[in-house]
Each structure stands twice: as structure tokens, then as C-alpha cells.
């Protein structure tokens, strides 16, 4: 995507996005509702025309040369956008025929997603939302496309099938498939994706590997004391008090934990100590919190708006 912009009247949905997804990578595209994720995906698919800039797949312009851009692409069609009068099997056959590629992965996917032959013989108007989602996922991936574009792929799937689906994604990545997915499930993105882009107000605010993103952010220590939280924690090198409440304190740590461990080693009132690496969810919430506070530190925690944003993400 190069300077990709989409405006709907006075509303700017995407504001000059520059983003390159490397081949063979599982790439997460993150942002809350209204951030511009779906608009970017629709531009990639050629469903809408960019106001400015270009979206390209394999070097082909998605709007002007859409047929070639989508030549070897699997797209997850929304589960409620399938022909209700077709049987599952007929729909898979139809979608494979339009792709002009044999459905080489169909059986594997149906087994992994636990969609049986009896279900495939039934009309889609008898399917639950989860079954439709499984069928849509199978339809997107059955021809083993070189590029997969998935918008909320695990929406409607139960946790066991979600894990199975993540295994399928890893298998596809091992086969060299490039996967571009948006998801509200940040833990899932953390488990499946190698790189992520975080989008906010139509702009990409971060684009890195998950490992690099975590390296840039602080670990978290939660300590419970027998009595009140002692003074002096703030003055330790690389330690920042995020939250203090009664006998519990949450700290953000810099590169070294030695000053903190030395401080605690001199005390006998430490009841519990929990050290956690930064989670993608915390990093993500940090980006949004900092934007609301008017600066872009990307600090992960201590957000008064985090619960609200987390709730929006889970919607």
C-alpha cells in the first residue's frame, strides 16, 4: 500500500497508509472498530476505489488490474454473505471453479475445522454462524492460494476450533503462503503472526515484528507487600511506578531488573512478585492510550481508557 487514502465525503477512513507485507509472512493488522482496517482490506480486494495512492498485490494495481492482482488470492467472504440456497459442498465447488484452481486443501481443512460430510450436504440456511464461518474459511483456503486475506477469521469459532485454525495457518505459512489478517483477538494475533501493523485513525502508527515490538516495551512487575507499599521504588534506576493501591504496586521495568531485585532482597515483607513480559494487548492498548493523552510513547499500561478500549476490541 502506497500513500493509500480513502475518503467518504468529509470522513477520512484511510489517510495515506504506506505498508509492505513481505512474502511468506503472517501479518496481523490491528485496530479497533472504525480505525480503517476493513477499508484497507476492501481497497486491497478492489471493492472500493482509492481516493489517492495505490494498493498493489504482486505488483498489480488492485483497482485497475484487479483480475491479475487477485489471480492467486484467497479471501474470507463474510459468513452471512453466502448463498443460503446452496449446500456447503456446492458452494465450495462453485467458489473453487471461479478461482480456476483445484481445491487441493479442502479435505485437510474440513477435517481440521471439523465440518463433516453430513453438514456439507445440507443447505446453508440450516447452518449456524460458526458452521458458516468454517465453510467460508475452507472456501478461502481450499485452493492453497499464495496470499490469504482474512478479516476477523475466528469470529464465531469456538476456542478449540480456533486453536485448530491457528495450526492450519501455521501449516500454510510453512508452505510459503503469505497471510494478511485483521483480528480483534490480540492473543490470537500474538500466537499466529510474525509481524503486525497497528492502525489508528486511518494511519499506521506501528509496523514491526512482534518480537521487536515487545523488545521496545517494558516488562511489568506486580508486587504485593505484607504492609503498605514502601517508599523509594520510584527512585530506582529504570523503574516506573504505574499503579499503587494499598499493599500492591505495579511497576514498569527498564532493561535491567537488578536494582529492583536488590531493593526487594533487603526487605522481608514481600508476599508475592510476578514478572511478566509485555503482551501484545498491553502494547496495543498503550498506543491507543498515548494517542488519547496526546503523545505517542507507546507505554503499555496505566491507562484509564484501557478497559473501555479493551471492551471495544472484544465487541
Amino acid at each position, binding site marked *: 500500500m502506497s500513500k493509500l487514502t480513502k475518503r467518504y465525503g468529509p470522513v477520512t477512513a484511510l489517510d495515506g497508509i504506506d505498508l509492505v507485507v513481505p512474502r511468506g509472512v503472517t501479518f496481523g493488522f490491528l485496530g479497533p472498530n472504525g480505525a480503517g482496517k476493513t477499508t484497507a482490506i476492501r481497497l486491497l480486494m478492489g471493492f472500493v476505489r482509492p481516493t489517492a495512492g495505490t494498493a498493489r498485490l504482486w505488483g498489480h494495481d488492485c483497482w485497475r488490474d484487479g483480475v491479475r492482482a487477485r*489471480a492467486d488470492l484467497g479471501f474470507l467472504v463474510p459468513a452471512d454473505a453466502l*448463498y443460503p440456497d446452496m449446500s456447503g459442498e456446492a458452494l465450495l465447488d*462453485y467458489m473453487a471453479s*471461479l478461482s480456476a484452481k483445484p481445491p487441493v486443501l479442502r479435505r485437510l481443512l474440513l477435517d481440521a475445522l471439523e465440518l463433516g460430510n453430513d453438514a456439507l450436504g445440507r443447505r446453508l440456511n440450516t447452518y449456524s454462524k460458526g458452521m458458516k464461518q468454517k465453510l467460508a474459511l475452507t472456501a478461502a483456503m481450499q485452493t492453497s492460494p499464495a496470499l490469504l486475506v482474512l478479516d476477523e477469521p475466528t469470529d464465531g469459532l469456538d476456542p478449540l476450533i480456533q486453536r485448530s485454525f491457528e495450526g492450519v495457518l501455521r501449516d500454510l505459512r510453512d508452505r510459503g503462503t503469505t497471510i494478511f489478517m485483521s483480528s480483534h483477538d490480540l492473543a490470537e494475533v500474538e500466537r499466529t503472526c510474525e509481524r503486525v501493523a497497528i492502525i489508528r485513525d486511518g494511519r499506521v502508527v506501528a509496523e514491526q515484528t512482534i518480537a521487536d515490538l515487545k523488545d521496545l516495551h517494558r516488562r511489568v512487575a506486580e508486587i504485593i507487600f505484607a504492609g503498605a507499599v514502601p517508599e523509594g521504588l520510584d527512585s530506582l534506576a529504570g523503574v516506573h511506578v504505574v499503579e499503587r493501591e494499598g499493599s500492591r504496586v505495579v511497576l514498569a521495568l527498564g532493561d535491567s531488573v537488578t536494582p529492583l531485585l536488590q531493593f526487594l532482597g533487603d526487605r522481608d515483607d514481600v508476599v508475592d512478585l510476578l514478572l511478566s513480559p509485555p503482551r501484545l494487548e498491553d502494547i496495543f492498548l498503550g498506543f491507543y492510550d498515548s494517542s488519547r493523552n496526546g503523545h505517542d510513547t507507546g507505554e503499555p499500561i496505566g491507562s484509564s481508557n484501557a478497559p473501555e478500549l479493551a471492551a471495544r476490541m472484544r465487541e
Partner: protein
Amino acid sequence: MSAIVRMTGRVLRSGLPGLIALLAGLALFEFVQPLVIASFGGAQGLDAIMDRIPPALQAFTRTRPEFLALSGLAGYLSLGFTHPLYIVLAGAAVIGFAARALAGEIDRGIVQIPLARPISRSAVYMSRVLGVATICGLLAVTGPAGMVAGLLYARPQGEFVYGHLGAVALNGLALFWAIGALSLWGSAAASTAGRVVAWAISLLVLSYFIDYFAGIWTPLQAIAFLSIFAYYDPTAALVSGHANGTSVATLAVVGAVAALAGLVTFTRRDLPA
């Protein structure tokens, strides 16, 4: 080409029960026409009844003496092809398909199925044009086929040449094509099937009444050419055995221009989420 045919087959199958019901209704309606005429004693029996209708009412029902004198049984039978119910049934089939096949699929997101694959918007649109053409062909032959069955069954008195129904079918095909292509243009621009149906029915009703009242109210004659029904004359076709070439060509061109405008509209528009 094969992808276009596959897509056409799919959109036709998704509305097949409704289409079959409308075609059956159309065939039944035309089947009944000869039975009704036979029950009045054929063309001669109807002539006697029509003579007793006041001239003003004759004008209103378009059964003027000159019409009766010239047309005979063929003229009475042709009323089955200008009757509002015939137009409504045929219009519902073609407008319903055009609205559902594009705007309906845009509204429900189903259009993403082909468009997410290496298939151009032009191909998706042309598959719908092919669907409209198929339905127009079915509509054009179903009515005459129903009438043939009715004639063979009832055998009303009066002269009739079965081959003349071919001219009616040709004129009907041109009319339905124009209606279907105009509806498809609306469908290419809209995002809900309901809006297309409302727009197309309004256009159809307006067009029908311009043509109808232009026949009995002189001031409207100046704009009668704007109505697509001005180019639809099944009576002349059934009596003479020839569809007016200019009229058929006009309807064909109206349909072709509308279909082309729809293609341009659909390939340039944004699809709603």
C-alpha cells in the same frame, strides 16, 4: 466465458422457484384467453357484445369499431398481451431478477464471492446481462406457448394463424429486454434490491400510463414516444404476423444503451461494506 455462464446459472438458480411460479402464472393467463373468447362464442360473439358498449367506453378499453373490424379473433387474443396483469407478471419476473442479481447481492455481500476471485466486474455484470436476456427469452415464449395450448384446447371460432405468435414473441422479447436492462442499470447503481424494484416499477407504471392515456387524450400524444410501450404493439403483430422493425430496434437499442450504462456504473462504483 465459462465463468460468466457459471455465474449466470447460479443467479438464475437462486431465484428459480419464484421465476417458475411467475412463468406458470403467465402461461396460465394466456391459456385462459382463448377459453374466455370461446365462452362468448368466439370473435363473432364478442363483436356483438362490443357493439353494445358505448363509444366512450370503447375508446377507454381500446376496442374501437375499426379495431374490431380489422382484427377479428387475433385482435381479441392480443388483448391478453396488453393486459396489465400480463405486464405485471412479466415485469415482476424481469425486474425482480435484475434487482436481486446485482443490488440484492451487493446488499447481502454475496457479490464478494466472485469479486474476491480473479474475475472482473465486467464479467460479473455480463453474467447478469445474460441472466436478464435468458429470462426475457423465457417470458417472450411462455405467453404465446400458453396461448397456443389454450387455442388447441378451446378452439374458439374465428381465423387465426399460429405463426403470428412468433411476431408477438419478438416484440415481447424486445420490450422485456428494455425493461430488464433499465432495471439492471438501476441495480448496478443501487445497493438494495428494494430501491431498484421501486424505481423500476415507477418507471414502468409511468411509461404504461403515458402510452395508455396518449391513446385517449390528445395532449399526451406529443410525448407518447417517450414510453417504451409506444414500441410494443402485439395487436399489429398478431394480426399481421410482423413485428414492427423500427419498434423492435428502438426497444433493442434502449436496452443495449441501458445495459452499457449499467456496465460503466458497476465497474466504477464503490461497493458498500
